């Protein structure tokens, strides 16, 4: 009997250890697993790797993750805080306490999709001829210079969806899916917080992400 529902945050994050890598969904305020994010700092872990589209969203969600120096490495498309004064995470990066991989957003999404799809590496025209391609393997295809990019995977993926059923099938609302759908496929353990756990199984035409990609679902209200 398959039942991926869990009752609390500590069960949802069970097994997460220092040094682990975490993919976290979200674009703008849509699809951010804020309950799960806020449960991270109190776990007392260190040297975590965050794989997330825009690091600012995490800092806004729970500034203690950087204040308490829990993060060692970040893979992101946007490592910038609001305003002109550097954010705490920008200062930690400048001091070398946090290392950084900066990735174009489409390449970021595709590397995660590749990580879930068993594609170890691919070529893309994005970033060819830019400073990001320096020192990287580049190659011509059809007369166009392309960059070799490798798949991204993580120990955990944390995401937010609107609805789940006990099989872990997910229904996303609005643009909630964003990076979450791919992240769910590319992590060893995928944890999803949802507005609602459906009493009834989601019908096939409402399943945006099949439960095979989901390990744990937790009901938790949207945080602002």
């Amino acid at each position: 009997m398959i039942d991926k529902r869990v009752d609390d945050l500590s069960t949802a994050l069970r097994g997460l250890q220092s040094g682990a890598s975490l993919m976290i969904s979200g674009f703008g305020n849509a699809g951010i697993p804020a309950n799960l994010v806020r449960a991270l700092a109190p776990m007392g872990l260190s040297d975590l790797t965050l794989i997330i589209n825009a690091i600012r969203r995490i800092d806004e969600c729970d500034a203690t993750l950087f204040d308490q120096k829990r993060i060692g490495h970040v893979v992101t498309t946007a490592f910038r805080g609001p305003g002109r004064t550097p954010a705490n995470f920008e200062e930690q990066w400048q001091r070398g306490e946090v290392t950084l991989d900066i990735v174009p957003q489409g390449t970021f999404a595709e590397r995660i999709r590749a990580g879930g799809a068993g594609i170890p590496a691919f070529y893309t025209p994005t970033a060819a001829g830019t400073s990001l391609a320096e020192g990287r393997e580049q190659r011509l295809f059809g007369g166009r210079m392309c960059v070799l990019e490798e798949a991204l995977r993580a120990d955990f993926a944390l995401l937010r969806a609107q609805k789940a059923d006990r099989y872990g099938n997910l229904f996303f609302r609005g643009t909630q899916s964003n990076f979450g759908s791919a992240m769910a496929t590319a992590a060893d353990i995928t944890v999803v917080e949802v507005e609602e756990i459906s009493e009834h199984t989601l019908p096939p035409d409402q399943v945006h992400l099949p439960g095979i990609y989901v390990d744990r679902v937790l009901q938790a209200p949207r945080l602002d």
Partner: protein
Amino acid sequence: MTAALSRDQMAWRAAQDLADGAYVNLGLGMPVLAASYAPDDRDIFFQSENGILGVGPLPAEGQGDRELVDAGSRVVTLRDGAAVFDSAASFAMIRGGHVDITILGAFQVAANGDLANWDAQVPNKGPLIGGAMDLAAGAKAVHVIMRHQTGDGGARLVEACTYPLTAAGIVKRVYTDLAVLDVGPDGFMVREIIPGLSRDDLAAATAAPLTFADDCRDLFAPDISVNKD
């Protein structure tokens, strides 16, 4: 010297070149203003790289679904015929060359079509790329809206970008507050210039050679008093 175009006027002008039936992605800042100024008789689908094809108007203040946002993180609506998908699918659409035009902001555009719009080398701030490199590399045509010069009178239309590149050789057209320029094999060709500005003055505000189209016209934009943003 005659009045340079306002932000909204630049966006208006760029919007006039969006064809009926076009699929269009608009960058943050001035480009996204263009959505308000597309001619009413044209059926245009605006793509948002976080996963929308067919962004509709902004909802009334406080209305709308907070889980439905555009690439600028604004709560938006969907137009008739819209579709929603995930980021990997969205960038497959962009990278695959299915978006007809992307309009982007820029720090610099070079005469060979190089675009620099992601790294202004601000001290003490971390890097931010977002989707610009993918849009620049993937869209069928890349148009740029930017002021012709920097705040302190430096050129933004240059022989070679000094800021780090977003993509090489891909800009097709630039809308500035002074002119509309195509980027072709011979560099910048001025298509339109604001009335009262001399060709020499435009050349002086530009750090790359200019040619002028045989049918170079006045750059016209209506008086836009209400900011529709």
